[in-house]
């Protein structure tokens, strides 16, 4: 560990802290304001899109209508992406003449990008044509993030709109939320980010592979493509699907420490800002800051474990002179160093991004445990756009329920009573996650098809399986590597995990939004438990940790935990 390393981490957090309010206020204006910014340019584009799609922006959706629109939109997008991949050899912009993507892989990838997971069972540069990257995958990079906005906006409206006169109990219009998030947030920001990245050397072209002569007389083929534009939305939309197989470790995706900082910054930018937007919608920004604080605690705790663990190095390699000085540099890029890699790994797994700038597989057991735990907490530490905050709100509802009981009142959140219906839905949300994650991972651990894909034996092999399903169910998309995932078994079961992790968890959230929407808002009094302040933040963090830890601790014991103890005793895998 170095002071310089900690300084990088502190600088990153301060930048996010500073950006949360302006970003949140901007999004509040976009989604809930009376007048959206830049009406002459973006407003025209917005209205044009409504006209083209035949959407009446004033007609609001109920929870069921909203959910149906979201699901149909995702389903159509999924099929479209599948079709493009299957037909890429017939379509333009395929300079390397890549063949059609095989069906199982195409399905897995279509699901992966539709669900904002961006799990990649393929190497981008050698599997996907430029058109596939830009159209099939790029499209989802934008719209899956936009759909996430919709989820949290609907939930926030359900919680904060006063019950009463509106008998339809509407939660906003899905199409309006979708269009606005694209027009006002994702497109302009990704344009700026792409330019910043390009300025640092991220490539942007439609060239075929460049062939160069190497110093030792051989030739090397170097993949080219429209990388900067893809990279910007890959990070900003918390997607994580890299243009190249090496993802953000590749010098054309992430060439300098500055781009590394920018890429990390834009991952947390929108989810952090949304906490402030949420507070604005609740009419009390402290409500948003409380959720931000809980997320911050969990984020900082994560980095504070990974960085020292990586800096300490691998106990088995400590005898090597360099390791003792440099720490565990295996699988890390020298231009990012241990701090830049540890921070990136924590961020990418806290937010359900999944981009990597180092190989998590090569982390020390404890360093690799944290990314896995981050995902197993349900991707609520900032999390994916919208879905992360929505998940945190569900945990807040559970915390409030327990807290309410302890102070002797029927629990309420933002002035609305939490009753059996909401508890049922919240528990459904909590249950679906371990059911898919542990259920499928357990199957993989004992099936021949599952263990066949492992690169390592023993607990490290189990970690690879656990990591894959945590990543898929959490819609993260990062890989522990080491697992050969492009098999029918993994393509199928991981796709299932991604679908469950996305849509089966969205439905209960929308149902909670709908059921809270109709409730009367009670004015707060001294007897109501305040859902801001340190006490609530502490309770919320404890509930997230306890539910996550109690559920996954036994499995983790057999993976990274035991591996840690074995490594300390000189055994590796």
């Amino acid at each position, binding site marked *: 560990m170095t002071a310089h390393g900690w300084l990088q981490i502190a600088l990153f957090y301060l930048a996010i802290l500073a950006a949360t309010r302006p970003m949140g206020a901007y999004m509040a204006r976009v989604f809930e304001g009376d007048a959206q910014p830049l009406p002459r340019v973006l407003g025209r584009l917005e209205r044009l899109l409504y006209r083209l799609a035949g959407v009446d922006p004033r007609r609001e959706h109920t929870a069921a209508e909203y959910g149906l629109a979201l699901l149909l939109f995702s389903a159509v997008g999924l099929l479209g992406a599948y079709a493009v991949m299957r037909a890429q050899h017939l379509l333009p912009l395929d300079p390397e003449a890549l063949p059609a993507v095989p069906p199982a892989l195409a399905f897995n990838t279509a699901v992966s990008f539709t669900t904002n997971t961006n799990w990649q069972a393929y190497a981008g540069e050698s599997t996907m044509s430029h058109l596939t990257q830009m159209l099939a995958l790029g499209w989802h990079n934008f719209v899956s993030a936009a759909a996430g906005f919709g989820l949290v906006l609907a939930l926030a409206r359900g919680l904060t709109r006063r019950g009463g006169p509106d008998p339809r109990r509407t939660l906003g219009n899905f199409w309006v939320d979708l269009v606005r998030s694209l027009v006002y947030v994702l497109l302009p920001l990704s344009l700026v980010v792409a330019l910043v990245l390009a300025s640092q050397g991220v490539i942007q072209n439609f060239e075929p592979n460049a062939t160069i002569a190497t110093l030792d007389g051989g030739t090397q083929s170097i993949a080219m493509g429209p990388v900067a534009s893809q990279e910007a939305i890959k990070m900003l939309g918390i997607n994580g699907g890299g243009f190249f197989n090496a993802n953000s470790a590749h010098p054309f995706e992430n060439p300098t420490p500055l781009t590394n900082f920018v890429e990390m910054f834009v991952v947390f930018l929108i989810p952090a800002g949304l906490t402030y937007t949420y507070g604005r919608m609740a009419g009390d920004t402290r409500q948003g800051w409380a959720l931000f604080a809980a997320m911050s605690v969990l984020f900082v705790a994560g980095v504070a474990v990974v960085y020292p663990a990586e800096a300490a190095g691998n106990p088995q390699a400590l005898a090597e002179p360099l390791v003792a000085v440099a720490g565990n540099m295996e699988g890390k890029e020298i231009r990012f160093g241990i701090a830049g890699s540890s921070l990136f790994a924590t961020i990418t797994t806290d937010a359900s991004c999944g981009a990597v700038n180092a190989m998590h597989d090569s982390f020390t057991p404890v360093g690799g445990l944290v990314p896995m735990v981050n995902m197993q907490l349900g991707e609520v530490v900032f999390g994916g756009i919208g879905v992360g905050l929505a998940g945190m709100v569900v945990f807040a509802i559970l915390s409030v329920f327990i807290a309410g*009981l302890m102070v002797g009142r029927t629990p309420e959140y933002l002035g609305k009573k939490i009753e059996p219906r909401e508890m049922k839905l919240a528990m459904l949300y909590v249950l679906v996650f371990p059911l898919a994650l542990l*259920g499928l991972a357990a199957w993989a651990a004992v099936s021949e098809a599952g263990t066949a894909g492992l690169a390592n034996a023993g607990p490290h092999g189990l970690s690879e399986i656990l990591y894959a399903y945590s990543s898929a169910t959490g819609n993260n998309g990062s890989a522990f590597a080491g697992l050969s995932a492009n098999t029918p078994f993994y393509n199928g079961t991981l796709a299932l995990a991604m679908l469950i992790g996305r849509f089966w968890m969205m439905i209960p959230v929308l149902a909670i939004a709908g059921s809270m929407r109709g409730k009367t808002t009670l004015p707060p*009094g*001294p007897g109501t438990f305040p859902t801001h302040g340190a006490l609530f933040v502490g309770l919320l963090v404890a509930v997230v940790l*306890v539910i996550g830890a109690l559920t996954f601790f036994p*499995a983790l014991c057999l993976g990274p935990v035991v591996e840690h103890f074995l490594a300390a005793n000189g055994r590796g895998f």
Partner: protein
Amino acid sequence: MAHPRTEERSLFDGPIVRAALLDSLRKLSPVYLARNPVMFVVEVGSIVTTLVLVRDALLRPAAMAPLWFTGGVTLWLWFTVLFANFAEAVAEGRGKAQAAALRRVRQDTTARRWADGVETSVPAASLRKGDRVIVEAGGVIPGDGEIVEGIASVDESAITGESAPVIRERGGDRSAVTGGTTVLSDRIVVRITAEPGASFLDRMIALVEGAARSKTPNELALHILLVGLTLVFLIACVTLVPFALYSGMQLSITVVIALLVCLIPTTIGGLLSAIGIAGMDRLLQKNVLAMSGRAVEAAGDVDTLLLDKTGTITLGNRMATALLPAPGVATSELAEAAYLASLADETPEGRSIVAFVRDGVGLRGGEPDPDAVFVPFSAETRMSGVDLGPRLVRKGAVDAVVAHVRDRGGAVPTELLAAAGRIGDGGGTPLAVSDGARMLGLVHLEDMVKEGIAERFARFRAMGIRTVMITGDNPRTAAAIAEQAGVDDFVAEATPEKKLEFIRREQAGGKLVAMTGDGTNDAPALAQADVGVAMNTGTQAAKEAGNMVDLDSNPTKLLEVVEVGKQLLMTRGSLTTFSIANDVAKYFAILPAIFATAYLEIEPLDVMDLHSTYTAILAAVIFNALVIIGLIPLALRGVRYRPMGAAALLRRALLIYGVGGVVVPFVGIKIIDEALAALGFA
């Protein structure tokens, strides 16, 4: 006030415990236990380990765990179920004991049914709603009803514990009678208002016995949380088997079941229904009958308390607190006249004047003149006094005395009238005193605010409950008393309509309102309020409209009802937190123990340094069962309620039940493990 029925019963009363032991066996029936999914899972687990035990004992397979281990786990799993059943049975037993005491009231009496001019003797139990019965002095009223004819003094001590008889008469607000009470004088005709088995006593008995208990919304929500957690742990434990298999370990069924039972929230799951029943029971001990568990829960949630001024906030008896002589009159002269005029006045006001003059002014008035003729108070004259020969001493309402003085040619100083006005504005009542044609002065009567009531309201404010005083007084008087009593708001010149409107307005703002009432005209408001406590002395209409009946007819009781409701929720919340927090230690006991068979290196995780795999697991199971027994007293008594802000309450509860819940099992499991080792198990 005496409470003959509500003697504080010790928590584990001999007969109740004996009955409960039997009941806990009866409750093992899976059909019954299925109502409680958490404990049902434990029972299924116990059955499975029992089968494993039988198989191991008979077949002795090669890879079996020691018999003492499987036997121990099985035994303690059964105990876990039994302890939970026992907790529920004890709570029910205590409720039944209360109910039996109530039932004693309803001895089998013969009723004299009166129909079409014919009187027939029928058993009281056969009376239907609408039947008329005659009850004469010495007779027991056979059922709840309303007097349609006559007036009687009734001994209601069987219900209320209050020994002084009360007057019950036809019409008005004193017409309701309760079955089981005794008529002391006169003859009344009662119209029965409840079907057999449907009187509020019957309903209450059914509730405390647990027969009619349906889950309240909050209980249901908590149940969902517990079932959800149970499923989460089921997933975690079931998937652990393949993960272990991957790691080269064959987990035995016994071990997986032990782990599962330790992790699922058995503590709160086993005590949940006991907590609910005990809440009803605590209310009953305070002589309040609740019509549903939902009402008790709502009481804990109340935001606004509507309190009648008279009797609740004030003593209801106006007392003399000052003498204001008219200009030119000596205080002693006014004092003597007021004393004489009140000597024969047996009203509380009259007595308070006598006492005030004697103690406050120090006048040693001798015995009254034997020729004195006392003039009692009448509604017509609104004065009382004494005639001493030609001397007419009077005291009474100011306008009445003023007219009396002016009739005799006397003058009334304007200062005096102004003073009378000021007394009224301050919330007091002025009485004028005259001697013949002379106006002597005023007696200041004040309705005394009950001692300590302001502190009590301050406590409620800390809890976030607003108190609102309801009074028929004019707004100025009401404001003065409201300030003195420390209520947050008041409704002056209240009419039943105004009350109802106020409740509706509060509820429209999302607030829960509680109130007490006794008159028929209170009935709509009682029905509208979320918690309506009817006084037992009140009319049948009021009792039907409310969802609680206070047998003592003490309006201040509302405050205690709220506390019982809060206690109920807090007990549930605290034990839930404790139950979940316990899991941390259980993980550290069980997981290293079972994983050490494949990975010895995991030993540092065994922070408790337990003796062996088997003692570790068994110790966790035993601890898990013992915690249920250990917490029964808390479940029955409820956690202490302290009036403080929500945040302070939560911090306290989290510290005790959250942090405590993490620490206690580490100690407990270690001790049990040591004990097992000392007994030779390893």
